[in-house]
C-alpha cells in the first residue's frame, strides 16, 4: 500500500527567503497527523506545495502519485481547506458545492452534498448566497468544498479558526468519522487541545525545518526533562530572576515552571520564602501538550 503523503527533500524559497528547508516525512494511510508550528513556521507553504499552488524543489507524492508528473491524479486524491477564507460571492452554498464537484469530475452527488451540509451544520443555508454567510459559516463551506469528492487525503489548514465551540465539536466528530472510514487527515491548528484530542501523530515545523514524526505518546514522553510542572500564582510579585529560564508559560500572576526533579519543588519554594514572595495558589501538574510544544521550540 502506498503512503498517503510522501515529502522528500522539499525546499521552498520566496526570492531569497528560505521558507522550507529540506523537509522529509511520510504519512501512512489512515493516520490523523498534526502539523504544528508557530506563525510563519512554513505550514501553509508546505500545504501549498502539496496542493500545486506553490512551486518547490524536491518530491511530493499523494497516494503514490507525484504531484508534478501525475498532477491530475494526485490532485483528485486530496481535498484541501486553505487557511484564508476565499469564496465566490455570486453563488449560493449549493451552487458552490455543485461547481466544486464538477471541478473534481464528480456528478450526481446530491446525497453526499446533503450529508456534508448536515454534518457541518449548514443545511439551513443551502440556498443562501455565500455573501450572506458569517465568517465561521464561510470557513465551514470551504471544508465542505474540500470533501465533495471524498478525497483519501484531507488537509486542513486551521479549519476551526473563528468557528464556535458547539459547531467545532460537531465538526471534529465528522472529521473523526471520516478518519475512521479510512481517510487520512493532516491538520494544522493553533488550538493544541484539538491536537491532543484528535491526532495520533505529530510533526513539528520550526523555521522551515521539520522535526521527526512522532506518535503523540512519544511526543508527550520525550525527555527534555522531568515530566511534571509547578504552577504557582503569586501575590503581587513576579518570579525571581533565578527562575526566569524555568518559566514555560505565564498568565498574569500565574506561572508554569519547568521542574528538573521532585527536589526542584523544594528549592523553588525555598527561594520564594527567602525573597518573601507570597503564594496564593500552587499546583503540581503533568506537562500538557502545549508545555511540551513550547519546550520543543526551545524557549
Amino acid at each position, binding site marked *: 500500500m502506498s503512503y498517503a503523503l510522501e515529502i522528500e527533500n522539499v525546499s521552498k524559497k520566496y526570492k531569497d527567503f528560505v521558507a522550507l528547508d529540506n523537509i522529509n516525512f511520510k504519512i501512512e494511510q489512515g493516520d490523523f497527523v498534526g502539523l504544528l508550528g508557530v506563525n510563519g513556521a512554513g505550514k501553509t507553504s508546505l500545504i501549498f506545495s502539496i496542493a500545486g499552488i506553490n512551486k518547490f524543489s524536491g518530491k511530493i507524492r499523494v497516494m503514490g502519485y507525484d504531484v508534478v508528473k501525475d*498532477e491530475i491524479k494526485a490532485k*483528485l486524491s486530496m481535498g484541501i481547506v486553505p487557511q484564508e477564507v476565499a469564496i465566490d460571492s455570486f*453563488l449560493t452554498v449549493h451552487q458552490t458545492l455543485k*461547481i466544486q464537484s*464538477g471541478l473534481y469530475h464528480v456528478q450526481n452527488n446530491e446525497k453526499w452534498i446533503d450529508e456534508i451540509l448536515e454534518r457541518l451544520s449548514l443545511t439551513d443555508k443551502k440556498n443562501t448566497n455565500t455573501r450572506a454567510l458569517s465568517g465561521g459559516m464561510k470557513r465551514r463551506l470551504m471544508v465542505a468544498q474540500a470533501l465533495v469528492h471524498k478525497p483519501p487525503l484531507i488537509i486542513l489548514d486551521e479549519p476551526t479558526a473563528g468557528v464556535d465551540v458547539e459547531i467545532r465539536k460537531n465538526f471534529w466528530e465528522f472529521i473523526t468519522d471520516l478518519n475512521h472510514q479510512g481517510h487520512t487527515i493532516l491538520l494544522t491548528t493553533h488550538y493544541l487541545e484539538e491536537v491532543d484530542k484528535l491526532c495520533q501523530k505529530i510533526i513539528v515545523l520550526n523555521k522551515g525545518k521539520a522535526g521527526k514524526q512522532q506518535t503523540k505518546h512519544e511526543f508527550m514522553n520525550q525527555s527534555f526533562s522531568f515530566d511534571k510542572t509547578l504552577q504557582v500564582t503569586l501575590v503581587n510579585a513576579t518570579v525571581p530572576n533565578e527562575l526566569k529560564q524555568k518559566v514555560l508559560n505565564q498568565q498574569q500572576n500565574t506561572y508554569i515552571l519547568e521542574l528538573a526533579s521532585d527536589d526542584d519543588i523544594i528549592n523553588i519554594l525555598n527561594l520564594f520564602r527567602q525573597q518573601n514572595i507570597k503564594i496564593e495558589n500552587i499546583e503540581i501538574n503533568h506537562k500538557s501538550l502545549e508545555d511540551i510544544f513550547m519546550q520543543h521550540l526551545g524557549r
Partner: protein
Amino acid sequence: MIGFNALLRREIRRFLIIWVQTILGPLTAAFIYELIFGYVFRNVSTGIEGVTYATFLVPGLIIMQVMINSFANTSSSLIQSKYNGNIVFLLMSPNSPALVILAYLVAAIVRGIVVAFAVFIGVCWFSSVMPYSFLISMFFLIIGAAICGGLGIIVGIVSVNFDQIAGFQSFIWTPLIYLSGIFYNVNSFAPLWRNLAYFDPILYIVEGFRYGFIGEATINLTFGTIYLLFLAVLINFIAYVLFKRGVKIKY
C-alpha cells in the same frame, strides 16, 4: 470534460448574474452612440455605394461591444480571483491548464455572442440592416471574441490590481479601437494613420464582421482572416503558457 463544464458554467453565471451591467450596459451604450453619431454624421459618406452612415455604424457598434465584453470577462474574472484569493481553488483543481484556459475562452465567446444579440436589439431601430451572411458575421465575431478574450486572460494574469487593467484599457485598447474603423471608413484617414491602421488587428475584426452585414469591405479580407487566425492562436497560446507557468499566480 466534467471539469471543463463546471468551470464554463461558473464563468457564464458570473456575467449573467450581473446582467444589468454586462448586457443592458452595452445595449444602452450602443443605443446612445447610434442615436447621436447616426444623427450628427447622417450626411457623411461611408465610401460604400448605397450604405448610409447609420447602417455602416450598426455592425461596428455590435462588434465593439463584443470585443470590450469578451476582454472584460476573462480579465476581470482572473484579477478578481487573484484579489480575493480564490484562485487557489482553480490551481488546486485537477484540471489541465489547457482545459482551464479553454473554459475561460469559451465563456468569453459566449458573452460576446450574448452581448452581440443584445446590442443588435438596441441598434436595429436605426437602420433596416440585416446580416448579409450570418455565418461570416459569426465567424468574425467568434474570432474577435477569442482574440480579445485571450488578451484578457494575459492581462488578468500579469496585472496585480484593477488599476493595471484600467491602464491597459486606456493606453492600448482605446487607441486600437479608435484606429479600427468602427466609426469611419479607414480609407478616409490621412495616409500615415491609414498605414498604421493596417497593422491594427481590430480593423480586420471590424471589417470582417461588417462584411457579414453589408456584403462589402473596404480592405483585403483574405489577408485579414489569416492574420486574425494567426493572432488568435498566438495570443491564446501565450495565455496558456503564462497560466501553466503560474506567472504572478504561483509563488
